[in-house]
């Protein structure tokens, strides 16, 4: 299975468990340097295959996902939001890598790194990356990924 399909399936599985119904809207090939969102969770991976995955959400969507994960609105509790988004990014990444039928099944992901800010740009690969844009209800989020 390719990484794109693995990510999409993993997003469906995990978000459905959270009673969120994500719909893939767009797949975009992106140049190396691209814009990011207000809340970004980076998960790198290495061993049999190597690359980066970044979950990118605006603050409102991040709160919505956090509320779905924790069962309550996080309000202004930024650290709760970051913890939750980091968790979901890592769970989806680990699940996606596991679906890829890599022979050795050895893959490792370190703890996610959360990056928040304004007018954020990011580079996750020296070559192109792909961005998957999802919609959940009226909110959107995207997952950028690159494979070295």
């Amino acid at each position, binding site marked *: 299975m390719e990484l794109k399909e693995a990510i999409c399936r993993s997003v469906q599985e995990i978000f459905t468990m959270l009673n969120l119904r994500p719909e893939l809207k767009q797949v975009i090939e992106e*140049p*190396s*340097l691209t814009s*990011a969102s207000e809340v*970004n969770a*980076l*998960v*790198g*991976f*290495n*061993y049999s295959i*190597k*690359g*980066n995955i*970044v979950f990118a959400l605006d603050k409102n969507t991040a709160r919505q996902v956090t509320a779905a994960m924790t069962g309550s609105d996080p309000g202004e509790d930024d*650290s709760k939001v*970051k*913890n939750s988004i*980091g968790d979901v990014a890592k769970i989806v990444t680990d699940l996606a890598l596991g679906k890829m039928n890599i022979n050795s099944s050895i893959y*490792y*992901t*370190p*703890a*996610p*790194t*959360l*990056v*928040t*800010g*304004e*007018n*954020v*740009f*990011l*580079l*996750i*690969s*020296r070559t192109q990356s792909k961005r998957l844009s999802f919609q959940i209800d009226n909110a959107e989020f995207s997952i950028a990924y*690159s494979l*070295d």
Partner: protein
Amino acid sequence: MEEEKLFFFHKCMDDAFRKVVSQLTGMSLTPITEPSSITDEKKFSLIVGWVGQNKGRVLFELNEKLALKIFEAMNGVPPDDDLELYLHLAEFANMVSGNGITGINDFYKSSELRLTPPAVFAGEKLEITSPKVSSAGGAYRLEYGAIRLEIGIEGG
């Protein structure tokens, strides 16, 4: 993760950082206790993860002015565009992290630590958080600004 191991890891990265900065840029580094000059204006965060017997990440933070000066010192001219700057910063982060991880792997033979590809983030009011990670860090003043180096290891 014992504190001793965490600080050893930080020392390896720190040694690598000083060696690479000195060799690539010729800039002098002065350790500082508080990198207050890394402001909320456009800031760069360079992140390189590692995996293996343990997992973690290296983080560098610096303002745009120093980032541009590092590029110029590496190449002799300013960058043609943003992409060129970001690519060089990614390579810079990769070289420091690679040298640091080599030091760790050579000491802890069973570590087999490997790096994930570098990621470069830039923006205003940039904040980096790594939940569930124990970290150790330090900062340096260079001619054109301050740079913070932090390593974070899962658990601990």
